[in-house]
């Protein structure tokens, strides 16, 4: 570690107003160990009484160098790191990465694998929104909401465990398909969840949607208009709450999303309450997609039979010499990818999750860049909190639904 230079005031002076420099306003640190910053985010606040004049987010506390680390691993081995980025959307990260690899080496995915990918990512979206609604309630002093949301999320994690053996870091989706087929109990487990969860959304809405305390805290707070949102690269539910109907599942369908009938919830107000409304409606839409995908789940293989990129099934290794060679080559040297770059994006619970993947002709990526939605969604925060009270900052921050693992990578 290099010696820390003396802090140069000139480097930071422009971040706050003149009044802070002569002590008229107060500078206050919020975080990085503050319970409502949802992780390790530090906010430098300039306050006039209780009113926020400036907010300067300071990120990087959770930086793990995943992009650099992935350059040193083969395409198959680098995938385990993708779970650790946005730890609320692990299956979605796998999907984004695998789609980029599949695009780079031109690999097809069987239909059954596509449908299972859709079911799992939509369940994950529900789980992610459940964590959001729970912590959102918690930040606004609706403690019971947190307990209800985590009770339901547990069932989704159980379904993931049923498929992959892991509750969170599944790495279940692999380039060319899935790790293995889902077990027979999968269908009943998901159907039970759908039946149960439809009623639960009504219960959440009964608790929160028309709650006068809730409305008082949210209506008209943290307004974000569509033009500012686009300028700051805001995507996902935050953009849709500002009146722009933009969802990659509809706009550029992948994994067969075009065959499912679902709506893209949009609200026009752009305030904290609109963001709540959009996400609650997304619960219902995701559930609709899961049900449709489950109804027409096709039979067949769950991974591509292109042995140059996809490892053979375990059963073949004992009997086929070629399968053994492929298995050995894929897990030691890896497969080569062309010297070119691709950008592929999916709609994560937070917005556009893009992967820029560049190969160099060898078995390891030359460069992997994660375009993570939380990063850009947070960058707009200083604009929307100006002029609000500190207590409102907590509500606004919770409504942006950031995940620090996603921001810092």
């Amino acid at each position, binding site marked *: 570690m290099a010696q820390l230079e003396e802090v140069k005031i000139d480097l930071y002076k422009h971040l706050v107003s003149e009044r802070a420099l002569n002590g008229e306003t107060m500078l206050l640190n919020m975080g990085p160990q503050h319970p409502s910053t949802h992780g390790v985010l530090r906010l430098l606040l300039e306050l006039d009484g209780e009113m926020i004049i400036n907010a300067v987010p300071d990120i990087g506390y959770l930086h793990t160098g995943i992009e650099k680390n992935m350059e040193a691993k083969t395409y198959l081995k680098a995938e385990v790191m993708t779970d650790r980025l946005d730890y609320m959307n692990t299956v979605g990260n796998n999907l984004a990465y695998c789609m980029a690899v599949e695009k780079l080496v031109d690999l097809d995915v069987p239909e059954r694998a596509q449908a299972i990918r859709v079911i799992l990512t939509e369940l994950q979206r529900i789980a992610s929104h459940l964590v959001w609604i729970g912590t959102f309630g918690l930040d606004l002093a609706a403690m019971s909401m947190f307990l209800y949301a985590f009770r339901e999320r547990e069932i989704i994690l159980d379904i993931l465990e049923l498929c992959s053996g892991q509750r969170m870091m599944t790495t279940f989706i692999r380039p060319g398909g899935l790790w293995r087929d889902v077990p027979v109990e999968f269908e009943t487990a998901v159907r039970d969840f759908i039946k149960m969860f439809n009623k639960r959304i009504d219960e959440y809405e009964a608790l929160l949607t028309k709650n006068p305390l809730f409305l008082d805290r949210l209506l008209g707070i943290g307004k974000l208009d569509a033009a500012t949102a686009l300028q700051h*690269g805001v995507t996902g539910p935050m953009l849709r709450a500002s009146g722009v109907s933009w969802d990659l599942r509809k706009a550029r369908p992948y994994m067969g999303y075009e065959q499912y009938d679902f709506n893209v919830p949009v609200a026009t107000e752009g305030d904290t309450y609109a963001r709540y409304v959009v996400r609650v409606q997304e619960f219902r839409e995701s559930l609709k997609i899961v049900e449709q995908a489950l109804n027409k789940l096709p039979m067949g293989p769950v991974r591509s039979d292109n042995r140059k990129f996809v490892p053979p099934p375990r059963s073949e290794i004992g009997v086929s010499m070629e399968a053994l060679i492929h298995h050995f080559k894929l897990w030691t040297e890896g497969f080569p990818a062309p010297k070119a*770059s691709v950008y592929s994006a999916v709609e994560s619970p937070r917005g556009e999750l893009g992967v820029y993947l*560049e190969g160099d002709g060898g078995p390891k990526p030359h460069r992997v860049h994660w375009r993570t939605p939380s990063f850009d969604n947070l*960058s707009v925060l200083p604009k929307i909190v100006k002029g609000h009270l500190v207590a409102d900052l907590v509500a606004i921050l919770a409504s942006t639904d950031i995940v620090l693992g996603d921001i810092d990578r």
Partner: protein
Amino acid sequence: MDNKLEKIVQVMQEQFGSTLEEFRGEVHVFVKPEQIVEALTLLRDKYEFELLSAMTASDYWPQASPRFHVVYQLSSLAKNITLQLRVPVNGDQPRVPTATRVYEVANWRERELLDMFGIEFEGHPDPRRILMPEGTEGHPLRKDFPLGYEEPQFTFNFEEIDLRKPYAKE
């Protein structure tokens, strides 16, 4: 190539003398560093590329000129098309004009590139590191920045790994 995109690319070629690269249906247009602000403004105002989806860079060390490519991934919501601009930058004192005045999202993205690659953006309103702590030496995502452990050398990649080892060469 998409019809709507073909027209835009043609204009880019005429106006900026850009070269073109196509891979798996993606279009990459190469632009010189001094043209980038003009090109982004044109694409935003005239061709409705409202969103700068991603901004990143790639290091081609030990190649010195151009050593870096700065990548701008643009999306048009109205037309539902995407376009990638690539700006080759030389290795000694890499400098690109800032795009913050065209897309505000570039503010944090450019800070990230300054932090990770040491690419300077001229006229950036807030040129500080964003992820690494102040006072860090070096730029982690550069190819000559060691990862922190020794990579195993095989016959097929012996020289390639030897080249990026940090010890003094004879």
